[in-house]
């Protein structure tokens, strides 16, 4: 905990120091992430990952000193909007990095791209902006929201599951995930259960699972819901006769709360802390040394975002030449922690996706672990509608 305070104070000091010493040619980057409420852990990972990259490069990206302005959207659309507007209009930033959640992205999208400022999402990748609403000023360094679920379908196929019980919260991302799963899964979906957001007690759903004929569960229960679901799943003794696979339910942000209950659970994603890429292993080591916890995909994506900006800025002489900046970003000429990485025509990534499972490390910490690659150079299914 103290770590968090220190980081925040340090970053605040860092920011004030830099801003007072700001020169005309400084590179200004604004960040809008969620740092309040339970999901604050996700936003904190993004801040930490980005700052680690920045630190390793001596506070410079593309050879320019960076002024990083971090804003908390408080998970309120109007706050996000105000913060983003002030970044664009008051601070006149060159790049906006954000957000964690798709609905926050919806809120800040229009004012940022309309001001012809590049918006790079280090996590949220809604279908909304992947298809016909794709935008020349918008890039995503994470994934398209549906992809992880689509790969989960492949995981289910690969593991030979015939009957799967799907459990998601009742909101857009939940429905997207079920649809994504159905798209690739070849077996039978026995149940599709939608719970309210913030669901506390899963025992009714668990009872239904135990009486269903499903041999596996597919879940999308981010944050605290995931912690509760996994613990209650294990407490009810369901782990013995049922497989559990999920997206954003057993990741490095929730595992400290799930611990042994989650070990052996399957997941799908484009990355794991032990993904055998040299740069990645170095990153995880440095990150743990500095922040004292295992990084999740959020931190990784933020690190990659910083590397992307680094590569683009070093290629361009004049940041006001938007076409040149766009071309440099699009080239994605940086060493991604995920290995292969490229942008599609809609500025969403084309990358490999893997099957992961949860393991306990020798030092008692938990993380997701790379099992094998299931989809190579996997593109999202909306990019064809993008005319750009």
């Amino acid at each position: 905990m103290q770590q968090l305070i220190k980081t925040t104070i340090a970053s605040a000091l860092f920011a004030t120091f830099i801003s007072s010493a700001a020169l005309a040619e400084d590179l200004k980057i604004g960040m809008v992430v969620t740092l309040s409420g339970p999901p604050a852990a996700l936003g904190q990972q993004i801040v930490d990952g980005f700052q680690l990259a920045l630190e390793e490069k001596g506070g410079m990206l593309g050879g320019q000193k960076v002024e990083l302005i971090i804003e908390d959207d408080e998970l309120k659309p109007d706050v996000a909007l105000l913060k983003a507007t002030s970044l664009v209009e008051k601070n006149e930033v060159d790049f906006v990095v954000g957000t964690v959640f798709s609905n926050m992205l919806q809120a800040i999208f229009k004012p940022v791209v309309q001001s012809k400022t590049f918006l790079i999402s280090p996590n949220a990748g809604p279908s909304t902006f992947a298809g016909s609403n794709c935008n020349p000023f918008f890039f995503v360094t994470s994934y398209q929201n549906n992809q992880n679920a689509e790969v989960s379908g492949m995981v289910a196929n690969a593991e030979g599951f015939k009957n799967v019980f799907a459990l998601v919260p009742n909101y857009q991302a939940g429905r997207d995930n079920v649809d994504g799963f159905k798209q690739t899964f070849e077996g039978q979906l026995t149940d599709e259960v939608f719970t309210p957001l913030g669901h506390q007690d899963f025992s009714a759903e668990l009872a239904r699972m135990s009486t269903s004929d499903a041999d596996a569960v597919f879940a999308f229960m981010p944050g605290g819901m995931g912690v509760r679901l996994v613990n209650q799943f294990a407490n009810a003794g369901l782990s013995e006769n049922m497989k559990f696979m999920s997206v954003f339910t057993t990741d490095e942000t929730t595992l400290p709360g799930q611990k042994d209950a989650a070990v052996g659970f399957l997941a799908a994603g484009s990355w794991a802390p032990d993904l055998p890429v040299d740069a990645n292993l170095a990153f995880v080591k440095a990150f743990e040394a500095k922040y004292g916890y295992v990084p999740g995909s959020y931190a990784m994506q933020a690190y990659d975002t910083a590397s992307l900006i680094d590569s683009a800025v070093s290629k361009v002489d004049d940041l006001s030449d938007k076409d040149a900046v766009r071309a440099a970003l699009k080239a994605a000429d940086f060493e991604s922690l995920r290995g292969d990485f490229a942008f599609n025509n809609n500025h969403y990534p084309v990358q490999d996706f893997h099957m992961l499972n949860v393991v306990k490390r020798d030092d008692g910490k938990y993380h997701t672990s790379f099992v094998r690659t299931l989809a190579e150079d996997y593109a999202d299914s909306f990019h064809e509608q993008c005319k750009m």
Partner: protein
Amino acid sequence: MDRSLILGLLIFLTLLAMPFALPLIGQGYLTGLIIKAMLLAIAAISLDLLIGHGGLVSLGHAAFVALGAYAAAIALQSGIENILVLLLITLALTGFVALITGSLALRTTGVYFLMITLAFGQMAYFTLTSLAAYGGDDGLTLWSLATLFGSNVVQKGNGLYFIVLGTLLASWWFVNRMSQSRFGRVLRAARDNPERTEVMGYSVTRYRLVAYVIAAMIAGVSGLLVMQHAEFVSPALAAWQRSGDLIVVVVLGGLATRNGAILGAFFLVIVEELLGSFIHEWRLIYGPLLVFMVLFAKGGLSDLLTSKRRGNQVA
């Protein structure tokens, strides 16, 4: 001229000058912040009509802001662009919903009224989250905005600023004017002593219902402008915490005072912005600040500024 009127005029003159003054000192972006405070103030003024003048503490008022915003947003999506038409739709919908919920809610008083309005607010909230066609929980980004007979002066920058300022001025003027009118007198009499007011020959519920509907309609208008400003609507607008924020603004500013709601709204927005820029954990300061305001600044900000003694009239 009385002090609070001078203060009010000063506030509006300052607000009028802001869009011209701020760019001169290179702080033009602050107009966005001021718009946010003004929108909050409009909703708070309407709530003060209920709490301060009517003695009716509603914990569901934000629902009307959200309803106004959604009514306008959905109409906009279906191709109605003229802001005046949207205004009529917003007024009609919020007024209608307020008439129905108000006539049920006003069967209760006191804390029971607070809870039943909370119930209606929550119903509105969950209804909005189920509108899958309009974004459900995620909310709805508006790709086009309202126009004034095809002109986009009401969309951005100073045009929008002055529309919001004008609306604030109109609501401020109307509610203050109303508090002196026959209607306002009866409303306050009913707050003081409903039984006596009935025996004076007034049907208290009728007057309260009219106040409830008017307050809802003003809140709805602020919702329309919130939509136009944020270019985005979401069910979060109707969350009970938002209604709580509105109560904080009204109480902090001073109940049934001429400028209380405006002062409270600006205080909240400025404190949030100022504290937030010093320390990320600004709530550690803001929370105790509220406690101290209650313990030591009875009667709200408006009393501090105009130093006129006035009791707290609402129990």
